[in-house]
């Protein structure tokens, strides 16, 4: 689903003129310097100059733009803040890059019903900030929350540190206004919490802009936790730390957050923000517990005992907000601290069963050695969502390619261990090929059929999320199920 000659022919002067008529004066970006600002999202390895950039300010303008693109057969890539990590907002060279960040005027809190009506361009954190005076907040908190928009969160089904206890975006959104490729405005779900017929609301979560454009949503708000405690535990061995994670989950404690950093990440962080940890620390675990004071105390005792049983030799417990913020700053410093150790980094994202974490980490270390590259691990351990960071230097001949192959090998490992090639970053442009490892031909065809039900001509974010069967065959990465070769209909080379 790359640019077809037809699409190129259709972004004509006439089309651009009609597009300009849909938008406010500042809303159309044609000059190259202006378009350059949109050539990539947070996955900067992938860059492409968009054909044209449209910045609507009202829902009706989005409808008009999509209708126009449908008429002319022009591809559309929707974008929020551009903080995505999988190239989901990588532009189409002969298409419209639809910047939705100005759909940020609507932010209405209904404190009695604990709901908020929110424009797609509103930043995630702004929702919680607006809800805070009512003692409420919006639970999904991707690390990008200062910048990322609700529309982007829905497109990616964003998680974050606290989704272990409070669910993903899909579990916290009750209704959304979707504009379809033919410009129709649909309400999916309902502020009542359910709607008759098929659950399209759930389906558009994580659909990466391939099914329609979400312009507004109703989200559920939660009461701010009454009490909170943050525990920090140091382990000599990363495998012990991973076993402690599995033990905490198995014990039935659901922490609000459970984050692991391996030795390399700890050393990197210690070098940047001196915490005075013992230098032989093999791994760090951060565990946040929340609830009523009694619950927090009971859970904290339980978790502390488990941490000790699994060999934690350094323990801190923070009850006051400043201390808690200090511990979390360690976790937040991890990616920047790692990034300054090499000219380039590749942040991976995969997900595995929690009981397999120790084995997975051991296998990743072995893979990194085999590829001759350094890999740091700092991730959402509680839900088995790993983020290995591969360090490399793209100036060295072949090193980018080596880093990318190591990344692919790690993703295949996740699938082998019963997990997924992406836990929260999405497939985007980055992992289209890796989809071939996880899904069979019938499953990929099912995805295509879903896509066609919403967007029969494939104009919405083409080339992302779903690989073609031919592409999978070319790569030779074929998901083999029950020992049967899954693409018998395709020629092999």
């Amino acid at each position, binding site marked *: 689903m790359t640019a077809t000659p037809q699409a190129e022919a259709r972004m004509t002067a006439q089309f651009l003129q009609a597009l300009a008529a849909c938008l406010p004066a500042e809303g159309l970006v044609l000059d190259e310097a202006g378009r350059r600002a949109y050539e990539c999202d947070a996955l900067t390895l992938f860059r492409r100059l968009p054909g044209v950039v449209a910045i609507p300010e009202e829902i009706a303008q989005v409808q008009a733009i999509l209708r126009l693109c449908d008429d002319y057969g022009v591809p559309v890539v929707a974008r929020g803040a551009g903080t995505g990590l999988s190239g989901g907002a990588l532009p189409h060279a002969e298409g419209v890059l639809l910047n939705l960040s100005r759909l940020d005027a609507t932010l209405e809190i209904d404190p009695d019903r604990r709901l908020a009506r929110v424009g797609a361009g509103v930043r995630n954190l702004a929702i919680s900030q607006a809800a805070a005076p009512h003692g409420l907040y919006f639970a999904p908190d991707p690390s990008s929350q200062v910048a990322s928009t609700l529309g982007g969160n829905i497109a990616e089904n964003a998680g974050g540190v606290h989704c272990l206890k409070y669910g993903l975006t899909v579990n916290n959104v009750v209704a959304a206004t979707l504009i379809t490729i033919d410009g129709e405005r649909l309400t999916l779900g309902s502020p009542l919490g359910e709607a008759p*017929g098929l659950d399209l609301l759930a389906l558009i979560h994580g*659909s990466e802009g391939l099914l329609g454009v979400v312009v507004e949503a109703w989200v559920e708000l939660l009461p701010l936790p009454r009490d909170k405690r943050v525990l920090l535990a140091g382990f000599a061995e990363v495998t012990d730390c991973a076993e402690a994670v599995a*033990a905490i989950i198995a014990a039935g404690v659901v922490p609000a957050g459970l984050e692991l950093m391996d030795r390399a990440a700890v050393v990197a962080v210690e070098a940047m923000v001196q915490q005075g940890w013992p230098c032989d620390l093999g791994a760090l675990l951060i565990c946040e517990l929340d609830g009523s004071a009694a619950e927090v105390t*009971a859970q904290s005792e339980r978790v502390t005992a488990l941490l000790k049983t699994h060999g934690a030799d350094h323990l801190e417990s923070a009850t006051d907000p400043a201390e808690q913020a200090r511990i979390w700053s360690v976790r937040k410093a991890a990616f920047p601290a790692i990034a300054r150790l090499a000219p380039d980094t590749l942040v991976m994202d995969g997900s595995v069963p929690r009981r397999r974490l120790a084995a997975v980490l051991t296998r990743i270390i072995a893979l990194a050695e085999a590829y001759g590259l350094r890999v740091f691990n700092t991730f959402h351990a509680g839900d088995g969502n790993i983020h290995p960071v591969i360090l490399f230097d793209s100036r060295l001949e072949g090193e980018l390619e080596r880093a990318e192959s190591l990344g692919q090998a790690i993703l295949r490992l996740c699938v082998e261990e019963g997990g997924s090639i992406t836990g929260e970053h999405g497939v985007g442009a980055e992992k289209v090929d890796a989809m071939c490892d996880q899904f069979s031909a019938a499953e990929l065809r099912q995805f295509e059929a*879903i896509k066609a039900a919403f967007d029969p001509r494939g104009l919405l974010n083409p080339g992302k999320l779903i690989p073609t069967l031919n592409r999978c065959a070319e790569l030779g990465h074929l998901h083999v199920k029950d020992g049967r070769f899954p693409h018998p209909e395709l020629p092999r080379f």
Partner: protein
Amino acid sequence: MQEADLSRELSERVAEAARRGTPLRLVGGGTKAWYGRPVAAEPLALAGHRGVVDYQPSELVVRLRGGTRLVELEALLAAEGQWLACDPPRFGAETTVAGALAAGLAGPGRPYLGGLRDAVLGVTLINGRGEVVRLGGAVMKNVAGFDGFRPMVGALGSLGVILEVCLKVAPRPASRRALALALPREALAERAEAWWRAGLPLAGAAHDGERLRLCLAGSESAVDEAVATLGGDEEDPAYWSALRDQRLPFFRDPGAPLWRLLLPPGACPALPGEGLVEWGGRQWWWRGEAPAEAVFAEAARLGGQASRWRGGDPRAPVFAPLAPPLLALQRRLKAAFDPEGLFNPGIHYPEL
């Protein structure tokens, strides 16, 4: 627990039905046959495809065949000190897990515990082409491909045959107690919300027209503390499973049709008949003689929605009408899974 893997037979039956263009009526435990519009099609029995495929208590995940009885699953989980973390109703011991998922119904704990929609991690489906497709997975976080498994919840079997389901489970609350308080119905919405925000371990908040009833579930200390704070009369928690499974006298009363209304908390329908309200004022059960159009209109006036639950004219609509473009999109989505329209045709709407 009985085990049988009928995947192959069922796929062949579906493929055969696709070849012949014969619609199928999917039958699980048969305990919700009255729910939705009547389906005139050849029955496809699914209850025999049953058994747990994988249960890792330490992982808090269970994978099982669709025909597994809900009560059997719960017994299995209880033996490990776990539960589903939500309370789907069972209108008989034969209710299957796939049937519960397809109906997408939730019990009294819905506002406080969530529903099956929040618990499902993956579904293996036979689609209308007779292909077995695995959607979602067995891990907590997975954003690879479309979340094609999520619309199975509440689809009433219209998208395919659910062969396997992978669910999140949770530690079972140590304590469960029930209270009845002498408070008027008007107090339910506001009080329940305030108690929940204050951190009381609510698992149900209802009013039967006489008394406000609460179900509390959580750690022993939290539940005991809530009982001491709230006062009222303690009663048998069995009330709550009877409410969930509609075994209370209110539901047994024959005669007038029974409606389910979802309303903004605090709203009260102006309709002839009598009601029982739960979900902290959000869900009403309403029994009364009123034309379907009048009930839909009253629900809409209050900013809510209605569905005809049991009884009444079988030709009358069950669910509130959809906007035409939304209905058209739902039809296209059904066709994406079931191009020949084999599965439970017309169960939501005549056109779907």
